[in-house]
């Protein structure tokens, strides 16, 4: 019986210094996948390489194939890697996809990365129906987790919290102007995010005109002089400050004058500098919102805590989806056993009918049809009880018992799994030499 394996490591086992040595580039991926697929006993494989993890998910003939997968990752990875089998591997796949195993729980990128890894594995002919089905179920669980829990809600990095808060104050940023004062990296990052989020104008101010010009070119903005600050505060809706000034350059008085001139249109000031560039008292002004580093970190921490509170519910959804996946697998197995059983019985009956007809001598067409109908009726009546029970059970011990009792293990696979896998041109010769087997992974409880 094929088993699901997971071999690899993540941010939980090794630091970034090790992970960066192991990362698999997009160019190397097809070659690595081909190598994995070429390992003896490995039917399907997918390699997930992100900045936080390097993991291989594979469907193999036996648990021992994990050793080969581990060796393939190389000695450095093998030293730290974890191997997960069957149920544990499936649970890990679901948890990784639902972003429950991520460094920042609830981050959205992992689902795209899993889809990308799957697409590349399919393109390389390394992934078949069994792994694809498990991945589809994992992605569906991840979608439920994202929509039904608050696990992905709220930004958790300083720059994304700044952008989130800007949206909360100003709504749609299209038509808004962003003023970037100073050249701090975090402010640049936030400015870029705001610009990408729809802000139509990005103004870059600096003490040095040359620095302002260079920075404006880098972030796709317009260089302006810092001397124009009072007028700029009237024009901009979001102000990002990150200068090295030792005194606040955006004072309460300056903002007070600007907000009146703006006719009280909201102004969002993000102070990412230390010492602070914006006088904290400016936050007391009506329609003025000042967020410094501590404020942003406070919101990020609160969001992280809220996400953490949702983890339990997310885990429950993952378990529900795994159970549903396992049930669907059992149902497919039961249908396959039933189809084999009926096909085998009908073939036997047909053979016996033909033998009997040849012994009876010449019979009319009507008489021949009567004999054939009788044989089919006997098959139907004999199989009615077992069929009803197998359908009722929808997989499980009876399916196994029937397969064993009637010798159905060697019957051709009609589930479609192998057919799907064979549809890949690279698969055809290899699969043709293989003994077709059920794809049911061990989670069905029938290992």
């Amino acid at each position, binding site marked *: 019986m094929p088993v699901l394996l997971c071999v690899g490591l993540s941010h939980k086992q090794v630091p970034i210094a090790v992970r960066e040595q192991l990362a698999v580039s997009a160019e190397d991926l097809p070659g690595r996948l081909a190598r994995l697929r070429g390992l003896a006993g490995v039917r399907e494989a997918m390699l997930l390489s992100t900045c936080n993890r390097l993991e291989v998910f594979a469907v193999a003939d036996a648990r021992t194939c994990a050793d080969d997968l581990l060796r393939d990752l190389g000695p450095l990875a093998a030293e730290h890697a974890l191997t997960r089998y069957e149920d544990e591997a499936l649970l890990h796949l679901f948890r990784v996809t639902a972003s429950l195993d991520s460094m920042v729980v609830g981050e959205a990128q992992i689902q795209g990365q899993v889809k990308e890894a799957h697409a590349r594995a399919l393109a390389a002919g390394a992934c078949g129906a069994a792994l694809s089905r498990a991945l589809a179920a994992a992605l569906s669980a991840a979608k439920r987790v994202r*929509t*039904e829990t608050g696990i992905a809600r709220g930004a958790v990095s300083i720059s994304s919290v700044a952008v989130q808060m800007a949206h*909360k104050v100003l*709504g*749609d940023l299209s038509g808004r102007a962003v003023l970037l004062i100073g050249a701090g990296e975090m402010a640049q990052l936030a400015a870029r995010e705001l610009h990408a989020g729809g802000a139509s104008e990005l103004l870059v101010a600096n003490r040095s005109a040359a620095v302002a010009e260079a920075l404006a070119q880098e972030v796709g903005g317009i260089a302006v002089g810092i001397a124009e600050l009072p007028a700029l505060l009237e024009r901009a809706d979001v102000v990002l400050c990150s200068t090295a000034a030792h005194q606040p350059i955006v004072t309460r008085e300056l903002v007070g004058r600007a907000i009146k001139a*703006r006719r*009280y249109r909201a102004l969002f000031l993000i102070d990412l500098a230390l010492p602070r560039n914006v006088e904290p008292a400016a936050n007391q002004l009506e329609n003025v919102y000042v967020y410094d580093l501590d*404020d942003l970190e406070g919101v990020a921490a609160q969001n992280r805590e809220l996400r953490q509170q949702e983890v339990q519910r997310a885990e429950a959804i993952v378990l529900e989806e795994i159970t549903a996946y396992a049930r669907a697998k059992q149902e497919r197995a039961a249908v396959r056993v039933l189809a084999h059983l009926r096909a085998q019985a009908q073939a036997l009956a047909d053979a016996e009918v033909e033998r009997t007809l040849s012994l009876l001598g010449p019979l009319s067409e009507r008489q021949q049809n009567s004999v054939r109908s009788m044989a089919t009726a006997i098959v139907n009546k004999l199989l009615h009880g077992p069929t009803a029970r197998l359908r009722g059970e929808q997989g499980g011990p009876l399916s196994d018992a029937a397969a064993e009792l009637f010798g159905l293990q060697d019957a051709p696979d009609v589930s479609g799994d192998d057919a799907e896998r064979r549809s890949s041109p690279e698969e055809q010769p290899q699969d043709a030499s293989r003994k077709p087997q059920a794809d049911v992974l061990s989670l069905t409880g029938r290992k």
Partner: protein
Amino acid sequence: MATLLVHIALLAYAAAAAAYLVWLVRPRQALVSAGRTLLFAGLLLHLGSFAAAVSLSQGEGLARAGFGSDAWRGGQLFSLLAAATVAGYLALDLRYRLPVAGAFVAPVTVAVMVPAHLVHGGTRPIAPELTHSLALAVHVFSAAAGTAALALAFALSLLYLVSERQLKSKQPGRLFARLPSLELIERVGWHLSVWGFVFLSVAIATGSLVSHESSGSAFPIAPKQGFAVLAWALLAGLIQARLVAGWRGRRVALLVVAGFLLLVGTYAGLLAAPQHVSAAAAALIAPGRG
């Protein structure tokens, strides 16, 4: 028939309120969809109850439209206000998607409807001189529309104040993620306030005409009229301040809240002192001879 329909509508509103309130705790999109659908179904039933009341009425002119009739056994005015508010909310939601406002509107609708339909006071027939008064019809329609617009503006102003407080304090609470942006709340609230002011102006003007038709006095001195004029003056000042001085944000939200509370005072005045109320208003709600 009308009573049955309005009771079923009330059940739909209650279910919608439950869906929206659960959504505040468990933010599932299905709950918002359910709440929206239930509110819409409730509104259709509610409007159906009005139609049934009209078709069953034996009166003439405005009385035929249910004014002063005994069909609903009291509470027509609140019923009308609730329907107008729900209709206004659904129109807003269609344009701006504001489920968090639904979590306010739906329970308030239920809170307004339940006492209105539990009170089984009789109603006084419409004054004969107002049976065919166009001014009364316009007065009631514009008062209902204005009250609904200001009720929604009030709800959004409260949302604004909560949201603004959270942003200023830098401590967003659990519901923060469900709140729309300050800019959206402010903009929609402003539009509603302007519409509320326009309808209120029409209601006051036509109200004085109705009062003149029924009692001979265009501006009788009574709490209802006093509160209505105060609310109107406050809203006029608010609009002036916004247009001239650019006021917006917290102070505008506070003024809208105050304006709506004055309007509530108008209705309280109407209920508490029916003897001072014009014949038209009394015909609408006052438990007269039954």
